[in-house]
């Protein structure tokens, strides 16, 4: 499977070509090059998946394959940074997800971004992102992952700020970068701690279950927790930043300032699940070395999920609703990982999390691309400017409905299967958590159908011109993703991906499944009652619980809290004194040094006289001086 290296090289070359040639290419040509190269990547990824999954199991376990490895930097005998490709069930699955969604977004953007300024730049960045994301998932070691992790962050920054003339977009891109960078600081410290004690970066070694690796860390504690717990919690902090877990979620809603296809690719399907992927990648380490961190992950996931679901119920910008729904769904995946065990039936959570990651990527990309088509038609993100669009946008309407049903967990759509597995896993772990997660699932169904009815039903608002269906380049990806969403649930996912590499037989837990279906149907019914036709109840409810409504609308004042902490406390009491010290003491010393050098330079200029006799003297005297010094110090 040596050709897998091409999956990385192609997007990189495309990025370089589009980035360097830039405006010399016609926009259409640039778009086609980008899409074509991604199409080849997708084909290669499918081939890789086919070949990998048809390989025989060794003692019932799917073994990882490393078709390419290159030692890049060697620090010590054990510690070295490699660049390579690691194929195992989850990385192969991610290859398929990323290339598929990315290809859809590439094709979709041909229509959506048509006529935009910087079209070539857009495709160059998309290629850069695809390269970084693919490099992240196939990383053979945690340091390589970190490198690509940062590259993904950069490309996300570049794409959020694509409309760099818009102040909101610039602010959003900076916010995303700074918040995730802050989280990555934890990630880096975690990596350093982990590698310091285990003397390796390699995922293969770390997850091999070899407990002797961690022997060095045994007994070392810090503030009551073992050092491994600290390391793994810090690594999770990096993942929480990228995956927008509470309280590091604040960047994701703002990131919606980027072009909508970018939101679909980066902020719904691929990059934001990197944190989930990271936890899944290191799952054995979490499970064996830091089980208390897994509980933390579950709690963070549940809190995030609940918080985001509540906020999503009252947002009016359709992309924000989808953003919060993404946060909430990633919370589901985190919870599933947090409650998962390792062997046999215990490993349900792990499998469910990966399954949900897969199905969610497809239907959430579909929702975002659908939202793009709607925005394309009405030139607004606000729900109040929509309504009654089902007549004008039939394809978008149907595909959007499919995605809404999927995310709400209605069979036979894919979301039902994966979400049901997650609920079953949480019930197995703790009934309380199961009830909470079911409640969130109900909220999910409610806010998604609130969105759906507000867009496609209800009172038609006044349009400047009649909305029209999007071009083929945009509707084809919608249809493709809708078909995937329809059938992905029937994939016997446990055959491919499981916590210990053994085959996991999925069987529906009917008691959980039926409850969740009933809950979803009831929620949808309420949403239908509230929003299908104009109905005064929602407004009345909003004014009755005006405090709660306002707080939820303002996202529970999380952004304000951040601003207060940074601007009022950190800037005033920490940054200002440091800035003063820097400006007066450090700069002063440097300026002094500079002035001294200038003065010295000025005062020695006479030494260079231009007379050759003097040069000879200096050579002779210099050598004699050296000789005398050597003789004296002997």
């Amino acid at each position, binding site marked *: 499977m040596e050709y897998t290296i091409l999956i990385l090289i192609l997007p990189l070359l495309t990025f370089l070509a589009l980035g360097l040639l830039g405006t010399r290419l016609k926009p259409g040509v640039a778009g086609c090059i980008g899409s074509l190269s991604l199409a080849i990547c997708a084909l290669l990824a499918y081939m890789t998946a086919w070949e990998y999954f048809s390989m025989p199991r060794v003692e019932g376990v799917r073994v990882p394959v490393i078709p390419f490895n290159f030692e890049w930097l060697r620090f010590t005998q054990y510690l070295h940074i490699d660049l390579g490709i690691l194929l195992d069930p989850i990385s192969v699955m991610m290859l398929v997800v990323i290339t598929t969604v990315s290809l859809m977004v590439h094709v979709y953007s041909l229509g959506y971004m048509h006529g935009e300024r910087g079209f070539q730049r857009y495709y160059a960045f998309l290629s850069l992102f695809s390269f970084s994301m693919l490099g992240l998932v196939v990383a053979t070691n945690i340091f390589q992952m970190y490198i690509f992790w940062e590259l993904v962050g950069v490309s996300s920054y570049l794409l959020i700020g694509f409309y760099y003339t818009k102040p909101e977009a610039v602010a959003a891109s900076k916010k995303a970068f700074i918040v995730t960078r802050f989280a990555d600081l934890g990630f880096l410290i975690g990596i350093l701690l982990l590698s310091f004690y285990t003397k390796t970066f390699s995922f293969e070694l770390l997850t091999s279950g070899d407990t002797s690796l961690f022997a060095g860390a045994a007994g070392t504690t810090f503030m009551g927790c073992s050092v491994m717990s600290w390391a793994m919690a810090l690594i999770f902090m990096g993942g929480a930043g990228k995956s927008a877990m509470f309280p590091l979620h604040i960047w994701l809603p703002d990131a919606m300032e980027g072009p909508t296809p970018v939101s679909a690719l980066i902020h719904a399907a691929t990059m934001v699940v990197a944190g989930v992927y990271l936890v899944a990648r290191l799952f054995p380490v979490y499970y064996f070395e830091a089980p208390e961190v897994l509980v933390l992950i579950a709690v963070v996931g549940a809190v995030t999920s609940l918080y985001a679901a509540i906020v999503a119920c009252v947002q009016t910008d359709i992309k924000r609703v989808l953003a919060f729904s993404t946060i909430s769904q990633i919370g589901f995946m985190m919870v599933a990982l947090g409650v998962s065990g390792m062997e046999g039936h215990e490993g349900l959570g792990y499998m469910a999390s990966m399954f949900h990651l897969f199905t969610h990527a497809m239907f959430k990309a579909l929702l975002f691309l659908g939202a793009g088509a709607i925005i394309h038609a009405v030139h607004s993100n606000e729900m109040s400017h929509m309504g009654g669009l089902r007549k004008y946008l039939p394809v978008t309407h149907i595909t959007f409905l499919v995605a809404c049903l999927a995310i709400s967990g209605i069979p036979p759509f894919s979301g039902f299967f994966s979400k049901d597995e997650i609920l079953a896993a949480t019930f197995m772990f703790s009934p309380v958590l199961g009830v909470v997660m079911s409640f969130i699932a109900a909220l999910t169904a409610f806010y998604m159908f609130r969105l759906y009815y507000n867009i496609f039903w209800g009172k038609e608002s006044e349009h400047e011109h009649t909305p029209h269906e999007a071009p083929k380049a945009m509707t084809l990806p919608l249809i493709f993703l809708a078909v995937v969403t329809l059938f992905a649930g029937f994939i016997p996912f446990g055959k491919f991906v499981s916590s210990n590499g053994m085959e996991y037989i999925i069987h529906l837990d009917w008691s959980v499944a039926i409850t969740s279906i009933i809950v979803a149907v009831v929620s949808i019914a309420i949403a239908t009652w509230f929003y299908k036709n104009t109905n005064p109840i929602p407004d009345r409810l909003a004014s009755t619980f005006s405090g709660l409504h306002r707080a939820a609308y303002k996202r529970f004042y999380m952004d304000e809290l951040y601003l207060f902490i940074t601007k009022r406390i950190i800037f005033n009491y920490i940054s200002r004194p440091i800035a003063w010290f820097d400006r007066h003491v450090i700069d002063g010393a440097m300026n002094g040094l500079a002035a001294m050098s200038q003065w010295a*330079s000025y005062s*020695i200029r006479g030494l260079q006289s231009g007379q*050759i006799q*003097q040069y000879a003297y200096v*050579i002779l005297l210099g050598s004699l001086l050296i000789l005398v*010094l050597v*003789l004296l110090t002997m």
Partner: protein
Amino acid sequence: MGYANFLLMKEEISLVAVIVILLIYDIFGTPKSLKYFQPIACILMGIHTLVHLYPAAEVSAFGGMYHSTPMGSLMKTILNIGTLLVFMQASNWLANERTLIRRGEFYMITLATLLGMYFMISAGNFLMFFIGLETASIPMATLAAFDKYKQKSAEAGAKYILSAVFASGLSLYGISLIYGTTGTLYFEDIPAGITGSPIQLMAFVFFFVGLGFKLSLVPFHQWTPDVYEGAPTSVTAYLSVISKGSAAFVLMAILYKVFTPLVNEWQAILYWVIIASITLANLFALRQQNLKRFFAYSSISQAGYIMLGVISGTAMGMTGLVYYVLVYMLSNLAAFGVIAIVEHRSGKITIDDYNGLYTTNPRLSFVMMIALFSLAGIPPFAGFFSKFFIFAAAAQQGFYVLVFIALLNTILSLYYYLRVIKAMFINKSEEPIAKFSSDNYTRISLVACSAGILLLGILSTVYENIGTFSFGL
């Protein structure tokens, strides 16, 4: 011993062949056919480089007078590449009417000095070394004075030959003292005879002057700015990289091989010479206006950095040194390539003349910027890695204070390198140097240098490959 011994000196023989072919062509070629002199010289040099690209195995001939190591062979390859780049950059200057008629001489004299450096590198005996040193330096004076009708060029030639003779004289005196106290001139036999007596220390110090002069280390550096300024720009480029690179390598080889018993003494000497070279040269460089003088001081301080690889006395230091020379050569040649073409097209040579160069010649400005960043040691350019390796080698041997001083000086050097970049990119000018297009030779050489600067640092294999030869010294 027989004539078969000559055949062992493959690299030297091949270079002599190139010189002879060019000589015959220059003498007997009709004016019309001489039009192709430049491309043919470059092609021949290119073939010579390619044939010997991969380092040859260890060879000893003439009873040990000639001793070639794989590392030395690698060094010769680096010098070959540098010479080829200088040839390419020289074409523009040589094509003017004053020098056109003497064009062949330039190539032959340059190659003659290169031959001298070959012998210096492969010497196994002090006499052989001295002959190589002189073969490399006497023709160099004629190169410096190549534009003999220009007063500055003639002055440069005179200053070079006088200083060189003086330094060589001291060096030869030192060698004679070595012979007097040890009774041999063979590198292999000398260490056994070295006792560290004062007279041997004196011998060592005087010997050191000869190579210190070539490297333009303080206090043997004062000829450098005058000669660099006066000599034709391509010759300055050649002086600053090829001549210096070979001297650095030879000094290291002799210190490691011959003066091993005096290791404490020569480390102490180098310690102070390095500090003086880097610091003084940097202080002088701060105030220079003429770019060639500016680069003269820059090259003095770079020589100090190169010595950091020598002082460590380890295989890592040696690898670092060869790598440093390679990177320094590419960076400096890129800078001199730009200076040469700008000087040729506009006659301008001071830093202020470069104001606003970016607006008219953006590509040249970029090459210059990359070169200066690399010289200053800014990542991700190769210069950062070369400095890093050399600092690491010195720090490994416990020279922390020295490395710290060198680091401080790097900051200082950043100031004056950035001055040039600021002039090109930020300063505005009423009349910037007019837009012009370079000839293809210059273009190729600049592209090659830039590619080297950009790639050498990232491709860790280059450094590792050099490392595999370092034990063959």
